């Protein structure tokens, strides 16, 4: 199983102009811990909506790569989004599920993936062009390559350890996060 911080840090090494949308809770903290960046659209709420924000962004900017990094709980809440993304087939969108099989923010209750619900199989059934599970840190470089150049839509289910990690809290003002992102995107 993967250490979530180490894995996310390796995914975002030399990220270039990658657009990153982390889901609320631990995914936002992991992305912040890898280094604050204006092209991170941190979420602190809107549970279940992360993948769709990624889709809207990917459709608006087909010239850029979009990476959604989020937890199993967030993706399960918006599982229909995978079908919607499958219909649109965005080549530039990848979703990385940081799957610890638990709801970390609320007291580590087991999630559906803990009972064996298979998000890779769901993504494939929803016509994702690339879907795979990873659980070893040696695979991080391959996943990073997928984010930058793989044929989307892509879903990577990363089985991470359920150990607690210290919170790293980025910007929380929604207007500021949005404005900083838009200005950075328009300046490159």
């Amino acid at each position, binding site marked *: 199983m993967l250490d979530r911080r180490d894995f996310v840090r390796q995914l975002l090494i030399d990220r270039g102009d990658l*657009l990153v*949308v982390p889901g609320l809770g631990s995914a936002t903290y992991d992305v912040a811990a890898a280094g604050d960046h204006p092209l991170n*659209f941190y979420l602190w*709420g*809107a*549970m*279940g*909506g*992360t*993948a*769709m*924000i*990624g*889709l*809207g*962004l*990917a*459709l*608006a*900017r087909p010239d850029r790569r979009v990476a959604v990094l989020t937890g199993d709980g967030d993706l399960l809440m*918006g599982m*229909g*989004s995978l*079908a*919607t993304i499958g*219909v*649109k087939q965005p080549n530039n969108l990848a979703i990385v599920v940081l799957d610890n099989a638990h709801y970390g923010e609320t007291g580590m209750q087991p999630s559906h993936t803990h009972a064996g619900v298979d998000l890779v199989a769901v993504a494939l059934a929803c016509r994702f062009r690339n879907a795979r599970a990873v659980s070893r840190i040696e695979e991080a470089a391959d996943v990073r390559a997928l984010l930058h150049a793989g044929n989307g839509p892509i879903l990577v289910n990363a089985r991470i350890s359920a150990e607690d990690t210290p919170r790293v809290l980025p910007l929380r003002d*929604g*207007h500021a*996060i*949005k404005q900083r*992102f*838009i200005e950075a*995107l*328009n*300046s490159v």
Partner: protein
Amino acid sequence: MAFAVACDIGKVLAFAHRNAMTTPRASLPSPTNIETSWPDAIYAHFRRAGIRQVGYVPDAGHSRLIALCRDDPDIADVVLTTEEEGVGLIAGAALGGQRAALLMQSSGVGNCINMFSLLRNCGFGGVVLVTMRGEFGEFNPWQVPMGAITEDILRLTGFLTYRVDSADAVDEIVGAGCDMAFDGNLQVAILLSQRLIGPKQWTR
């Protein structure tokens, strides 16, 4: 200095190119009767406002508008499994520099309540067009509880709401709504009343 100005112009041109729209195709015949052509008036404002993404859950009242959007190569039509997905779509589109609209039935408003906080909290402008059920001559009582509270819910979640009761008011109200939403990054909902849509579309 001149170089800096040239760079800025380049950026503006790149942005304009990305958002440029082609001439709309007129492959769908246009109705001439205002009682049935109001979706065309909405679509004309979508074009004028430069809306590039339209999310929707299939709906009889919006069927002509959906067909117009699907037929437009400049508009990404995104069919959703639930209206709530469209809220995320609006936010993502705005982050990428595109304007988006969301089409739904009044029952769909209830599906969006928590997700609407995303628009309010970050100041994402967007237009939601709601075809009303459960308010005027509704045959199905199951539609009434949500239809009766739709406008209140929208107001409570941060929307400016405008009701349209007659076909000849659609053009003006949708035009004003689009301007307010996108000039001011506001959340605007336009409620198309059941009286406007008419009972004919609900029976076959």
